[in-house]
């Protein structure tokens, strides 16, 4: 708590001005994102108001977030403000709580303390569980429907946009074609109508990524989306996510392990670190 209140905030450390550059239009420059942690405000109590007051383009406001597991805080008092269109890498050792943080952001897990708010395009602040159709997830276990085709799985991405009776007998043709475009872009065109259960691990993973991309969410939560992909596909997938972030203003949270990839793609790094007293640290990536 004291540390973040200290005058030597990470932003000052990065040597950037505290002015906040609107993110979505700019290609994510180092300066604009280096100023991000400065919005991580001194006190958790003042977090939401303060962040709201100073950064209207902030997309995600996390204040005082803490998750406890087995009598131990995985992370504690996590305060973070992320501008729209940022690529946030989450790093940390196994079991540190990276996926837990993503689950909290997805609204799938109620945190022990603190709160998460998303700013919708209209400017309204909402809790994650109230804007699920606009959160795209690439789960660590993929959670694809195995007994169903790749296309059907990708089409599941937009279920949240329709009422249940509209999707009862399949998606409209335009949606099917849009889904196929994404499937083909990820190199899965020959497998469009094959069952997910028949695919290899990497192909399944790309299907899960295609589902999230097809959803066109405001926020991507990707839990190790490239763990089964080769170097070429890794670059392609992360590049596509980064492009979505920079051009469409869709914020990306991505669990990554490879420091080179973090340096290449991320704007901001949240490291969940058990050796840290609070269990987390935030740093910008300098380019």
């Amino acid at each position, binding site marked *: 708590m*004291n*540390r*973040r209140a*200290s005058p*030597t*905030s*990470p932003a000052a*450390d*990065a040597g950037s001005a505290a002015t906040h550059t609107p993110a979505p239009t700019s290609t994510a420059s180092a300066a604009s994102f280096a100023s991000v*942690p400065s919005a991580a405000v001194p006190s958790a109590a003042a977090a939401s108001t303060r962040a709201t007051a100073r950064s209207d383009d902030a997309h995600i406001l996390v204040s005082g977030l803490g998750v406890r597991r087995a009598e*131990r805080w995985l992370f504690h008092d996590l305060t973070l403000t992320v501008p729209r269109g940022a690529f946030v890498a989450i790093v940390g050792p196994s079991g540190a709580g990276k996926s837990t943080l993503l689950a909290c952001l*997805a*609204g*799938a897990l109620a945190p022990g303390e603190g709160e998460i708010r998303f700013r919708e395009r209209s400017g309204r602040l909402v809790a994650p569980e109230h804007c*699920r*159709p*606009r*959160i*795209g*997830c690439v*789960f660590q*276990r993929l*959670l*694809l*429907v*195995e*007994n*169903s085709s790749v296309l*059907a799985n990708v089409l*599941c*991405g937009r*279920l*949240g*946009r*329709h*009422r*249940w009776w509209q*999707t*009862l007998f399949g998606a409209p043709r335009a949606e099917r074609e849009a889904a196929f475009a994404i499937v083909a872009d990820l190199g899965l065109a020959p497998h469009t109508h094959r*069952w997910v*259960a*028949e695919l*290899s691990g990497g192909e399944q993973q790309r299907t899960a990524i295609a*589902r*999230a991309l097809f*959803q066109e*969410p405001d926020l991507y939560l990707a839990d190790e989306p490239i763990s089964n992909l080769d170097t070429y596909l890794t670059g392609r997938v992360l590049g596509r996510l980064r492009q979505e972030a920079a051009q469409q203003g869709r914020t990306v949270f991505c669990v990554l392990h490879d*420091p080179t990839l973090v340096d290449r793609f991320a704007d901001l790094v949240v490291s969940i670190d*058990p*050796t*840290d*007293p*609070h269990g987390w*640290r*935030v*740093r910008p990536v*300098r380019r």
Partner: protein
Amino acid sequence: MKPPAPRSGSPATPAPTPSPAPSPPRPRSEPHSQSQTPPNTQPHAQPPPPAQPPAPAPVFPELPWYRCLDALSVTLLLFGLAIFFSLPTLRGSGRDLDYWENARRFLARFFPPDFSVTPQVLTALAETAQIAVLATAGALVLSFPLGLAGARTLSPRWLVTLARLALNVTRTVPSLLWALIAVAIVGANPLAGVLGLTAYSVGYLGKFFSDAFESVDLDVARGLRAIGASRIQAFQHGVWPHTRPLIWSYALWMLEYNLRSAAIIGYVGAGGLGVLLHGYQEYHAWDRFCAVLVFILGLVTVLDLLGEWVRRKVTKRAARAPA
């Protein structure tokens, strides 16, 4: 060049860290490369940590002996005991009977089968099939909601209890008794057969369906919920594709089963082949009885092969999945 001093670090009272060895506090804003190993040239480097006693080597965690008594081994043990105590049943009547001669004499009356009754048998066969098809269809419609209600993973507890109780009660009553009840209600005609078999099949299909729904990994459906799908959508796209092959193959099995049952329930007057069987038995026309049996055998065999083929088609793609 000197690395930047840890500015945010070195608080007056360092917060307790969960790590075993006390490490110098690391600056929050440092890149990994610098924050990993702070060199000794730091202006206010911490004194080296006091030497700690070496950690004892981890001991192999031996399991206590009683851990081999799991549910399976205990069940096997009990089953062995049960076999031993059931042996007295094999004594029979205790009278000096020539079992082989009895069997030979009785079975000899079955041969040769009298196929002169083929026209009647075919008519009754068609009726049997009609009863079975309608009963299976009715049971499918009724047992789908009951199966949903009986799935512990999908329904609230009270509903599960209620549905399972209803299914168990239905299953406890044998099909002949159901047919008897139906005959008492609607009279001795094929409708009684349809009603009786429907009630009986609901007990089975409902249980199978709820087990099928329970066997689904609900995380997939939860994943769909997390990206915005409604409950019904999550069920349709996340649960149904997994249960569909199971449910169709159970339905096929039930159809086969109902065909066999429908051949018997005529004994109590509920239509179908059983009426013929009952009549021939009354008049000791065992050769005709045998002809009916041959037809049933043919029917069941054909259905078995057909069902097997369809089941393979339905579940083949799921089975081809990599492990």
